[in-house]
């Protein structure tokens, strides 16, 4: 699934990153526990989380995750957005809660 589709399906806005039509994810993982995310070592995955700390970017970076979808309408702090830009991680943000965002994406074919 292209990130442009993720954007459209969840009504998200793009906080950091560009050329979303060129970035593709094949799976998604939803969690607020970064160690659980780290335990799942698969690179072509969209991370769905309600956290907005720099560690979500670092986690994505370590696992080569292309993108993060921040849920629950959280505002992503400037320094986190900056870190995302320098490390090349795309950050999207939606007002949906984690359950709803996950459900919408799953229904449209993005598997776990």
């Amino acid at each position, binding site marked *: 699934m292209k990130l442009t589709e993720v954007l459209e399906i969840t009504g998200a806005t793009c906080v950091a990153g560009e050329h979303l039509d060129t970035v593709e994810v094949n799976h998604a993982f939803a969690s607020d526990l970064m160690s659980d995310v*780290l335990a799942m*070592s698969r*690179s072509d995955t969209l991370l769905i989380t309600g956290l907005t700390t720099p*560690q979500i970017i*670092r986690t994505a970076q*370590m696992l080569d995750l292309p993108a993060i979808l921040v849920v629950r309408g959280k505002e992503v702090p400037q320094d986190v957005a900056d870190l995302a830009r320098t490390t090349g991680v795309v950050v999207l943000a939606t007002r949906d809660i984690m359950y709803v965002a996950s459900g919408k994406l799953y229904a449209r074919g993005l598997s776990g």
Partner: protein
Amino acid sequence: MSLEQSVEALRYLGLFSNLDASSVMSTAVYALHPEDRVAAARILMRENSISGVPIVDADFRLVGIISVSKIIEALADGRLADSVDSVMTRDVVALRAHDSLETILSCFQRFKFGRFPVVEEDGKLVGMITDTDVLSAIVRSFYSVYVHDQRRMMTLGSFSALSEEFEKSADFVYDISCIGLENAGEGSARLKAFLQTKGFGESVVRRASVCAYEAEMNVCIHAGGQGSLRAIARNGEIIVRVEDEGPGIENIDLAMKEGWSTATDAIREMGFGAGMGLANIRRFSDHLVIISGKDKPTKLEMIFLAGKE
């Protein structure tokens, strides 16, 4: 402690439950055919300093064993030119490939033989186990997850499994200095970038980075944010060492358990402290050494083998 008590302790504590006969045995084994001469067995034993030779049929099925005492008897009777078949012991005590260390030690205790053949379900010989093999396997398994705390210090003295190479020549050095959690993970990010320039595969770099990140987070969460992250990356091997100044891990066995954590709620709100850090590190590293104790610095060394993908 008698061998009997050791077996009892193994059973009770579930120690070395990962070791079975197939991981203990030597697989480079000399064997003879029943029609070979006793003289051949004698030469084989003398030249290779072994005290027993398993006898197998054409399909490699174990049919007997010949020991030094049988050779001595044959010598006395002038039967060195006879076939092995005529002097070998047919009633062989053999181990199965999946037998536990406890079973192996019980065999040594019960039968007083110096060696046991290991066979598969179909009776084919796959290896031999001597007491040296058992000792080596135990030492090897200490090296794969070597946890060192005060208790083990009393048992093992000051022996350390850590590489001394770091003191002389680390390839990558980063000083962890973290206030709050703002830059926690920066060292691991730099390490990852460094490893990528060294030509290691994507997967081993990811494993090393994830573990370094978990270890760096531990320093930031539990050890006041001061420590070091160093790495040696050569010869198809990445060794990462993370050290801090304490307060140390009081009970390493407990800390290795998934879900066990001493982190505060504030840390948990940041997505860490769920008790998965060391568990993740153990899962993704090929060898792991932790040296710590109450009010002691923690030294953590992880080895990642590029060939083990």
